Every structure is written in C-alpha cells, then in structure tokens.
C-alpha cells in the first residue's frame, strides 16, 4: 500500500438520509494521474469533498501518504500535502491575485516568506497570464484565469497530491487546451493528480487511469485507454450512438 499516495476503501458520504457516495474504493499511486468521470450527480464532488476533508465521510476509510486520515479536516489535509482545487474555483474574489497565492501557502506565511516568493514565481511561470494580473482583485479575472489562479493557489502549498474538481466547468475549449498541458507537465515532474471531470473525453485523454462513477458508486475502473473503449463509456460519456 505504501506506493499509493491516496487510497479509499468503502467510502460513503451522506447528506442527512440521502447517500451521495455509497461505498467507493479508489487508489491513486504516487506520481499517477488519475481521473474520475461520471454524469452530474454521480457523487464525484461529494467524494472529492470527503477526500479533502471538507466533508466527514459517513463510512469507510481514507488513507493518505501512509496515514489513516479519515475524518481529518481540510486544513489538516493541506498540512499533510493534499491540495484541492474546488468546484467553482472559490478564489478569494475580494483579495488580489498575489494575496490569493500567498494565502495558498498560509501555514508558511511569516516563517518561509522567501520560499513562498519562490513558489509564487514558479507558478506564475506556469500561468504567465496571472503575472499580468498580479495586483488585480481575483474577482475581476475571467473564468479561465480564475481556474488558473485556483490551481496556482493549490500548488503554492507544495502538495503531494493535487485534486481538481471539475476543471472544465464553464470554460471555453481554448482555455482547456491551455490548462491540460500544464497538468500533464506537472504530473511528469512527479506530482500526483486526481482529476474529476465531466468532460470525459478530456479526462480520458490525459489520465493514466480512470474511475467511472454512477449513482454514488464506481461502476468501472482501469487504464484510461481501456475505459475509453468500454461500450458503457462510449454510450454514456463519449457521445457515440447519439447519446448526450
């Protein structure tokens, strides 16, 4: 198990009596690029919220980087090296781009300011458009720029695993063509990535391994190429035979 950065076993998430995630097993190996696809309401976001500590799972266990982290809160998960780019970006709209990035390294502020500055320079190298807007309020950025900022903010925390929930949400294909190569490059440098994506074709193209969720369960998983060739996936997510 020690080669996995993240592993879930039987994880359940419930909102009151409604179960959104009904027992999911999932593993992300160290340095892997793993995708989770599925339709709206399949439980992907709930699962990510449980992994990142935003929600407490109703059952099952989550281990991260060799430790049982079930029920840990999000700020504790960040300290352990998990960064999540949440659905809807959630940038701090009333603060500048720079201040957003600095907050990304919250636990190191005042202790390692030189390191933070270096990390910010590095992420600005990945997203040059952010350096042009560095002193603007984050709320004035376009959707694509906000997504860049959300990813950059996550990276500044020096994560071992980057979780991205709905990268493509509301973004133009042109922006996605900018974002995906950055993720691939980060993964090549050794960062483990877990990507949740409604646009299955994008996710299947960049990830090594894919989980398919439906109704709170994983119905299929395997190497992305294999998943992409599965008739169920072709039907439901890749739009063959006219399905949406």
């Amino acid at each position, binding site marked *: 198990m020690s080669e996995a950065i993240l592993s879930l076993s039987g994880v359940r998430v419930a909102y009151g009596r409604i179960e959104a995630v009904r027992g999911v097993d999932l593993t992300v190996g160290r340095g892997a690029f793993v995708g989770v696809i599925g339709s709206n309401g399949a439980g992907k976001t709930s699962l990510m919220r449980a992994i*990142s*500590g*935003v929600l407490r799972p109703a059952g099952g266990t989550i281990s991260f980087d060799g430790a049982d982290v079930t029920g840990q*809160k*999000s*700020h504790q998960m*960040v*300290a352990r090296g998990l*960064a*999540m780019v*949440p659905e809807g970006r*959630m*940038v*701090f*709209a*009333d*603060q500048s781009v720079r*201040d957003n990035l600095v*907050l*990304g390294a*919250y*636990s190191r*502020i*005042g202790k390692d300011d030189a390191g933070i500055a270096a990390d910010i320079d590095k992420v600005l190298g990945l997203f040059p458009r952010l350096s042009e807007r560095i002193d603007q*309020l984050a*709320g*004035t*950025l*376009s*959707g694509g720029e*906000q997504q860049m900022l959300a990813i950059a*903010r*996550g990276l500044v*925390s020096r994560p071992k695993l980057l979780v991205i929930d709905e990268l493509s949400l*509301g973004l133009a294909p042109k922006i996605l063509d900018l974002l995906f190569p950055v993720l691939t490059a980060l993964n090549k440098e050794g960062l483990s990535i877990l990507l949740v994506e409604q646009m299955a074709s994008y996710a299947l193209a960049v990830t090594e391994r894919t989980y398919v969720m439906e109704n709170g369960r994983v119905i299929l998983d395997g190497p992305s190429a294999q998943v992409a060739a599965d008739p169920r996936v072709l039907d439901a997510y890749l739009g063959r035979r006219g399905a949406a």
Partner: protein
Amino acid sequence: MEAIVQYLLTGLSAGSVYGLIALGFYVMWSAAKAVNFTYGDVFMLGGVGTVVLMELGLPLPVAAATAIAGAAVVGAIVERVFVRPFNREANSIGWMLTTIAVGIMIESSTTATYGPLGRPLPTPLVEHPIRIGGSGIYPQELLLPVAAIAATFALEFFYKRTVLGRAMRAVSFNRVAAGLVGIDADRITLLAFAIAGGLGAFAGFLVAPVVQASASMGVIVGLKGFMVAIIAGIANARGVVIVGILYGVAEKLIEGFLSTAARDAIGFTLMILLLLLFPQGLFGRAEVRKV
C-alpha cells in the same frame, strides 16, 4: 445654537458606543455568519467587571484590562459552546435562540450577584466637564469617538495587513476555500468572537463612568448596536461606525427638540424606513464576483 452643539457632542459620544458595538457585530458576522445576541451583555461585563474588580482593590487600568480579557474569553466561550454547534448548516438559526438565552442568563445572574442598581466607575475624566461655548461635556465622553475611530483603523489594519486578519477575511469570504488553503476556519471564528468580546467590553468600560455600570446597561444599547450594524450593511468597519455615530446624534437631537420618550419611537422608525429603502444596508457592497 448652544443646545445644538450640546446635542452634537453628546450624540457623538453616545453614537460612538453604538458604533463600537456595531463593529463587534460586524467582526463576528464576517467570520461566523451568525449574530451573537449576548453581545450587549458582554459589553456590560466590561463596565460591571471593572467596577467589581476595583472594589476588590485593583487599580483602574488593571481592573479594566482584566475585565476586557475576561469578556474576550466569554466571547470565545459563546462561540464555541453556543454558536458553533448551532451553526453547522448553511441555514441554521439555532444560534439565535441560544445566544438570546445566554444573554438573558448573563444579565440576570449579574443582577442577582451584583445587584440591580448602577454603580459609578470613577475615572479622572469625569471629574470636571470641559466647557465648549455654553455646552459642557466630560473628557470621558470625548474619549468614546476617539476610541471608535481608533478601533476602526486598527481593525482595518488588522484585516488588510496581518496574516490572521487576512485569514479572517478569507474565512468571511468563503469558509470552504479558507479550509482548502490550510486555514483552520473554526479557530479563526473563535478568535473573531474573542476580539469582538474584548472590543465590546472596552466600549462598556469606556462608557460606564458616564452612564454608571449596571447589569442592564447593555440590553438596549446592544440591540441598537445590532440595528446600526444591519442598517450599515454589516459590510465594512467604517460604514458601521459612521452609521453608529449618526444614529447617536439623531437620537440626541430628537431627545432635545422633542422628548426622551419620542427618541426610540422615532429612532427605530427611521431605521425601519432606511432598511426599506436600502435592503442591503447603506454600505452593503455589491459582491465582487464573476461567475
């Protein structure tokens, strides 16, 4: 003319108290999106606590500092025990019931132990009034607007320039996102209530020499401070203090030209009308957000 100067001066002083209390409501609302209705009583603890500690023999500055620190702890306890567990869901309003109840408990237990009557809090600043034209005002009263303005700037500095302050703004803007960058939102909220508690008690300590320290001194003032915060839009520090001061001045003018009895009726009517006209509050901001 002299009368108007007098009303303006005392109004400025009374309004500063509303402003300081509204500032505390703003700090707590920003962090928790909940209203702490014990706040008028936390304010009272600043005045009453200082009087009691001085009667025990402590010098004024030590007594005041101890009372303020104690009120900060009370603020933190209220958050941890009576707000947080009742504010778990987005639409929770359990904190309303619990804080109103605890506020009544603080007030009645103070009445039972300290007594129902007000007691003086002697400071050198209420010995001789200053004469301005034909009007008179105690230096202590002039201290209140100074304190309100200083607290506003201190708070703005805290929110903009300090790590904790920026974390507090992040929590205020989006609790989930704050957690995801490593901020312990619960701890920050606790801290916000402690800061507000200290601020409220500071206001109670400052005004006690003028109005006497009594168990009930915070009830109406706390309510008015809350109202001021709502009218201002609970969105920025300056706004709530400005509205607080204006409301204090308006009250004194009504008192002076009409009657004390008319003060609250007209004052509250004015506030209700303002709320009708500006549902977001006078300084309520349009959110900087692009989706």
